[in-house]
C-alpha cells in the first residue's frame, strides 16, 4: 500500500493523540505501542476511496464528526443504570457480562462469573496494571497497526477493553457477554475499545461481543479485537452490532489460529449508519477448521461493509464462509472475501458463499471474492448471488395457502435464519431473532 496523502484535516485527531500520549499512564512497552499507533495514523490518515480496500466505503462523514475520545473519567461519570441495559440482555442469560461504557470498563454494571481456575475474565486496563505477561506478549502482535488509519488510531488511544485468557485445557464454564455501550455526549462521542483473547492449547470458550447505543445521537466506535487460538483450542466468537442509525462503526477482528484449532466466527450487523467489519483469520498450523458466518440486515441510507480474510498459511486447513445480506431502502452492502492460499498450503479446503437479497430497486450491493492461490493441490470454491426472493419458492408457498406477503416474510426470515442458526448459544440466538425480526419487519414494511 502506498502512502496516499491524507485529504482530511487530521489536526484535531493528532492534537488529541499527542495529548493522550503525554498524559496516559502505562508501562513503557504500552507507551511505545501508542506512539507507534500515532505515528502510523499521522502517515496514513483516514482511508479514501482511492484505496482498493475502501473503494465502496467513503468515510468522510466520520472525519467530519468532531473527535471527542472518551476517557476513563468521562466514562465513569456517565450515569447509566442497570435498568437501561435491559433491552440488551439475552433472554434467560445466566453467564457473565462485562459492560464497557464508551470503551471503558464499568464494573458496577458488570456481572463477573464465579472464579474458575485457568479462566481470566477482566478488563484490559486491569490486566495491564497487574502485569499479566500474556498482554505484553500478544497485544498488538496480531492485528496490523497499519491495516488502516483506523487501526492506527485505535492503537494510539489504546487503554481499555476486554481481556480473556484461558490456560491450557481450561474450558470456560459459561459463555461470556461483552457489552459495549456507546453513550454519546457533548464531551465524549468516540469509543475505541481494544480486546484481547488468548486461548491456551485445548481450551474452549464462547464469547459474544455486542455493540449498542443509548440514545440516537451520532457517535463513533473504533474497535479492535485480537484473538489468539492455541493448538487444539475451540473458540466461538460472535459479534453483534446493533448501534443507533447515526453511529459509525469500524472494527477489526484478528484471529491467529494454531494447529488443529477450531474457530467459529459470527458477524451480525444491523445497526449504524456506516459499519465496516474487518475479519481476518490466519491459520498458522495444519488441521485448523474455521467458519466465518455473517449476516447484515440494513435499510434507509445505511452502509455495511465486510472485508474478510482467510489466510491459509499452512497445509490441511479448512475455512468455510457463509455471508448473507438483506438490503432495503437505499442501503448499500459491501462484501469482499479474500482467500489467500500460500505456497505450501497444500490440501487447503476453502469455501466461500456470499448471498444477497435486495428488497428494493434502490438498494445496492458490491460483492467480490478475491482468491490468491499459490499452492496447486487445493479445493477452493466461491459463489456470490445478488437478487430478489426466489419466484419458485414464493409460488410453492402460495400453492400451500400462504399469501404472497406472508410468503415473502417467511422466506426473508428464513434467509436470515440460515445464518443465525449456526450460533450455538441459544439465548443469543433468541435475542438476535427478536431484534432482527423487528428490523426485517421494518425493512419489509418500508420497501
Amino acid at each position, binding site marked *: 500500500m502506498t502512502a496516499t496523502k491524507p485529504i482530511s484535516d487530521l489536526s484535531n485527531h493528532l492534537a488529541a493523540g499527542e495529548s493522550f500520549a503525554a498524559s496516559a499512564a502505562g508501562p513503557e512497552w504500552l507507551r511505545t505501542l501508542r506512539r507507534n499507533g500515532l505515528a502510523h495514523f499521522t502517515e496514513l490518515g483516514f482511508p479514501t476511496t482511492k484505496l482498493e480496500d475502501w473503494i465502496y466505503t467513503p468515510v468522510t462523514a466520520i472525519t467530519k464528526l468532531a473527535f471527542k475520545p472518551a476517557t476513563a473519567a468521562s466514562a465513569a461519570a456517565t450515569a447509566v443504570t442497570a435498568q437501561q441495559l435491559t433491552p440488551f440482555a439475552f433472554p434467560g442469560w445466566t453467564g457473565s457480562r462485562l459492560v464497557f461504557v464508551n470503551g471503558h470498563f464499568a464494573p458496577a454494571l458488570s456481572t463477573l462469573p464465579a472464579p474458575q481456575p485457568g479462566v481470566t475474565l477482566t478488563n484490559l486496563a486491569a490486566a495491564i496494571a497487574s502485569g499479566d505477561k500474556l498482554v505484553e506478549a500478544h497485544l498488538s502482535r496480531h492485528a496490523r497497526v497499519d491495516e488502516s488509519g483506523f487501526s492506527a488510531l485505535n492503537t494510539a488511544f489504546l487503554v481499555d477493553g476486554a481481556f480473556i485468557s484461558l490456560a491450557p485445557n481450561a474450558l470456560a464454564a459459561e459463555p461470556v457477554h461483552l457489552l459495549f455501550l456507546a453513550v454519546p455526549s457533548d464531551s465524549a462521542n468516540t469509543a475505541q475499545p481494544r480486546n484481547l483473547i488468548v486461548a491456551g492449547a485445548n481450551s474452549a470458550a464462547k464469547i459474544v461481543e455486542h455493540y449498542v447505543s443509548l440514545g440516537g445521537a451520532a457517535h463513533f466506535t473504533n474497535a479492535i479485537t485480537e484473538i489468539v487460538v492455541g493448538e487444539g483450542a475451540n473458540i466461538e466468537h460472535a459479534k453483534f452490532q446493533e448501534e443507533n442509525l447515526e453511529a459509525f462503526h469500524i472494527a477489526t477482528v484478528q484471529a491467529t489460529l494454531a494447529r488443529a484449532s477450531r474457530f467459529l466466527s459470527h458477524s451480525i450487523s444491523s445497526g449504524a449508519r456506516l459499519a465496516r467489519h474487518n475479519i481476518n483469520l490466519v491459520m498458522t498450523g495444519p488441521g485448523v477448521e474455521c467458519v466465518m458466518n455473517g449476516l447484515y440486515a440494513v435499510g434507509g441510507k445505511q452502509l455495511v461493509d465486510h472485508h474478510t480474510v482467510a489466510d491459509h498459511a499452512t497445509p490441511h486447513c479448512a475455512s468455510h464462509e457463509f455471508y448473507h445480506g438483506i438490503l432495503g431502502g437505499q442501503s448499500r452492502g459491501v462484501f469482499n472475501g479474500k482467500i489467500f492460499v500460500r505456497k505450501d498450503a497444500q490440501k487447503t479446503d476453502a469455501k466461500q458463499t456470499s448471498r444477497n437479497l435486495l428488497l428494493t430497486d434502490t438498494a445496492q450491493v458490491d460483492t467480490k471474492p478475491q482468491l490468491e492461490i499459490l499452492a496447486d493441490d487445493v479445493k477452493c470454491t466461491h459463489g456470490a448471488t445478488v437478487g430478489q426472493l426466489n419466484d*419458485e*419458492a414464493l*409460488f*410453492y408457498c402460495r*400453492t*400451500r*395457502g400462504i*399469501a404472497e406477503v406472508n410468503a415473502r416474510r417467511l422466506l426473508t426470515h*428464513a434467509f436470515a435464519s440460515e445464518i443465525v442458526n449456526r450460533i450455538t448459544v441459544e439465548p443469543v440466538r433468541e435475542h438476535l431473532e427478536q431484534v432482527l425480526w423487528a428490523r426485517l419487519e421494518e425493512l419489509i414494511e418500508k420497501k
Partner: protein
Amino acid sequence: MSQPLIEIKNLSAAINGKQILKGINLTVCPGEVHAIMGPNGSGKSTLGYVLAGRKGYDVTGGTVTYEGKDLLELPPEDRAREGVFLAFQYPVEIPGVNNTYFLRAAYNELRKHRQQEEVDAVDFLAIVKEKMKLLELPDAMLKRSVNEGFSGGEKKRNEIFQMAVLDPKLAILDETDSGLDIDALRIVAEGVNKLKRPDNAAIVITHYQRLLNYIVPDFVHVLFDGRLIKSGGKELALELEEKGYDWLIGKHGK
C-alpha cells in the same frame, strides 16, 4: 353423476407468447381419479401450473370452473385454501424454514379460511404424527428445513405428506412417480389411495403407466401438443404401455 368438482373448457395457455395448451376440455367429478398421460413436452406440467395459478403461465382462452367458481380469477393461495393442491414434480427447497413450521402455517391458513380456530404446535404435532405413519416417514424429517437436502424420493413423499395433512378436494399430482424407486412408489401410491374418498378427486399426471398399477384411474386421457387427443378407461393406459404414443400421435399429426 354428481356435480362436477372442476370443469375445464377449451382452456388454452401460453408461456412467453408460446402457445402450450390449445383447448383442453376435462370434467372431474368427486370420487374420480383421472390420469393424464403423454410424451414429454405435450403440456402436462403446464396444465398443473395453470390450474395452480403460476405467474408467467398466461391463460389465453377458455374457462375453469371449480365448485361453481371461476378458478382462474383466484390467486394461487386462494385456490389452495379452496382445496386445490398441486404436488410438484420438482418440490422446492426452502432452507431455513422448518418443515413442520411450514406445514402448520399452511394448515392454519386453510383453517382461517374456513373460519376455524388455528391449531398450536402441540396439537399440530399429533395430527402430523398420524399422517407420517401413512407414508412411513422418519420423525427426523419434521425437524429439517423444507425439502432441503432431501433425496428425490423423500421430496416426493413429503409432497404427499403435505397433501395428507392439508386434505385437499382436488389433488393434482405432477409426475409424482418420477425419480421414485419401486418401494417408494408403492408407499406414495398407497398413501394416495388411502386418502381417496367419495368427496375428493385427483388428477394424476404421469409419463409412464407404472404408477397406474398402484393408483387405479377411472379415466385416462392422452395429452399431445396441448390437446387431449384420446380418453378412455384404465385399459387405455395399458394399451399405451404396450404400443407407445406413436400410433395415436400419427393419427393426429402436428
